């Protein structure tokens, strides 16, 4: 075991995957020589050579388009989009091509491909470095969408994503790269080395896609969260003094509905927290599913705490970010209903 930041864990997942399988190739903007603007691919070009880890032109549709061709050839590309905010030029390639290839030709060609991208705000990135576009991918049939919340999960889930036979969108909450973040931005960041989930095996391991993890068992209310919001939810539950069960979804699609259902049937209450904008956000899907599966167990209306339906602002970042205060208010409302 080693102490790793989320960045080091992601780098290690690349490294162990490339070592185990020579079909794995890694590329993107600034990914090769420099090792990525967040350093998630540091040292890979030096170790595996420029044919397996290289820099690309600034062209997201080119990055994903070529990766689909490589995947169809039989390689296993794992490409980086520098910020999820820049993925939209590749959206056609992802939606119309990667996600549909297996289906449209009945498996004659397939697309085992990982598209990694940092997501989320809290770094004063403004509207072009802060978005959480998970719902534009979960809405697309044929894609798996993953968002880890800690180094241990990030490494294991990325290894699984690379091994997966289908395209996987792998979203990395950049506010968590160096430590868990509870939403109190005035406080110094707690480094991963002081957190149990910063303990990461150096060698290969993988974690199954489609399995949620209960971060905090509780009896009174279920909180559904993923990425950065897992820690915000923890802080909020503590503050509110509510015995919340916090579920870290880890994979949004396929969703671990069994874990969600068991919890909500037990607690009878559900609060959904995500950083992305609210309308048609993934929380809407979660709320509907909970309603469909657990309606007769519900004691209170399902609550959503999310980013506002505005572009992610710069100066007003902390008024936008779903704070522990907003989450605890929702928890209290749920308890009082």
């Amino acid at each position, binding site marked *: 075991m080693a102490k790793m930041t989320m960045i080091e864990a992601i780098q290690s997942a690349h490294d162990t995957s490339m070592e185990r399988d020579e079909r794995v190739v890694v590329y993107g903007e600034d990914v090769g020589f420099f090792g990525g603007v967040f350093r998630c691919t540091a040292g890979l070009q030096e170790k595996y050579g420029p044919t397996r880890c290289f820099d690309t032109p600034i*062209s997201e549709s080119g990055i994903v388009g070529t990766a689909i061709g490589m995947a169809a*050839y039989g390689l296993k590309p794992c490409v980086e989009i520098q910020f999820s905010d820049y993925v939209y030029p590749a959206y056609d390639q992802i939606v119309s*091509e990667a996600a549909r290839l*297996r289906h449209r030709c009945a498996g004659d060609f397939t697309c085992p491909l990982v598209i990694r991208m940092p997501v989320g705000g809290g770094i004063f990135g403004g509207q072009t470095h802060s978005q959480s576009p998970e719902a534009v991918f979960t809405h697309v049939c044929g894609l798996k969408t993953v968002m880890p919340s800690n180094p241990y999960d990030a490494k294991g889930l990325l290894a699984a994503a690379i091994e997966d036979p*289908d395209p996987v969108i792998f979203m990395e909450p950049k506010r968590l790269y160096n430590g868990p973040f509870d939403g109190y931005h005035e406080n110094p960041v707690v480094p991963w080395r002081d957190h149990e989930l910063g303990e990461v095996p150096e060698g290969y391991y993988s974690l199954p896609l489609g399995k949620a993890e209960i971060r905090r068992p509780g009896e009174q209310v279920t909180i559904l969260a993923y990425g950065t919001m897992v820690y915000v939810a923890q802080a909020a539950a503590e503050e509110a003094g509510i015995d919340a069960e916090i579920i870290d979804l880890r994979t949004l699609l396929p*969703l671990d509905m069994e874990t969600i259902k068991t919890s909500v049937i037990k607690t009878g209450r559900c609060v959904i927290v995500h950083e992305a904008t609210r309308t048609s956000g993934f929380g809407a899907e979660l709320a509907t599913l909970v309603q469909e599966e657990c309606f007769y167990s519900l004691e209170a209306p399902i609550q959503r705490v999310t980013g506002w339906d505005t572009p992610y602002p710069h100066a007003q970042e902390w008024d936008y970010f779903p704070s522990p205060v907003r989450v605890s208010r929702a928890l209290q409302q749920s308890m009082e209903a």
Partner: protein
Amino acid sequence: MSEFPPLTFNVPAPELRPGDTPDFSGVEIPRAGSARRPPVDVDPKEIRDLAFTIIRVLSRDGEATGEWAVDLPDDELIEGLRHMMRLRAFDARMLMAQRQGKTSFYMQHLGEEAIACAFQKALNKGDMNFPTYRQAGLLIAQDYPMKLMMCQIYSNAEDPNHGRQLPIMYSSKEYGFFSISGNLSTQYPQAVGWAMASAISNDTRIAAGWVGDGSTAESDYHAAMVFASTYKPPVILNVVNNQWAISTFQGIAKGESGTFAARGHGFGIPSLRVDGNDYLAVLAVGCWAAERARRNLGPTLVEYVTYRAGGHSTSDDPSAYRPKEEGDAWPLGDPILRMKGYLIRKGIWSEDRHTQAEAEIADEVLSAQKEAEAIGTLSSGSAPSARDMFEDVFKEMPPHLIKQRQEAGF
């Protein structure tokens, strides 16, 4: 007040519209045999002229002339003609089948048969095409079973795509024919990526991307050109300029100056412009580009100058936007008639043999059609199961899809 006059806005328009008399006198057609054939390792800046001329082999008199004329065995020449004839006969039957309600949609190749039929002969087993919807000649030229193509068109129980894709969106890994998407130019960067993978894997196989004149305007086309110029993978980048993108003339995608081939120069990619209605010229240029790719010399851009003599698809009526007789006036002629004339002049073909071949091919196509229709058409017979639509979204069906399939009652 500006010292300049008011600005005006330029919207290119074709010179002729319905009712006008077709006139291609402004289209410069170089003499067959006049273009030089450079060595495959030529510096792209030495051959800029080849992106503006038209490489032609077959002359008006049915002679093969010039440096690009290759000596093919008689049987291969005749086979080439027969492939084009078969594609045309196939198109005719399937157009009729669509009119009869046996399928929803069809796209024909009329006037463009030489391009895919000849190009395929430049490739080897294992190479991969990333075709658009108007390259069925790539399959026909490999004797891919027409019955399977028809099963796909009819979306019947033996459709290799299980009825999931629009008619003519074939897929065959075995025949080096990548699954057609139907989205435009998306497969151009994929062809480049496939070729990059081949080079990364130290393989010997090459790829070919295909795009039409209109869709060169898509950003994916330019992304593919950037990646091809950067990594120099073994890929042939084909642009089929058939003059029309549905109702939009090629001047809207390209503007009113330059050529599609000339765009390769900005990327440092050797670029050739070829007579797309000339089977021998297409084959010669295809072989030149393929040799460059196999020798690790990198990508080649090829523009095929042709004319879409039919409608864009069965949903299109070209008489609404261009003169009806324009196709007949097209100065590069009909690819089948030109090849036929060449073979007759060469003494290895005759009017009688041609008529006989037409009848044989019509029989072949008809018997394939009967076999396919015995299985089913879109409107009758055996269809793929509804249950099947839930398969292959993922390799393993996730719980939510299993649930939806149950809900749907399959």
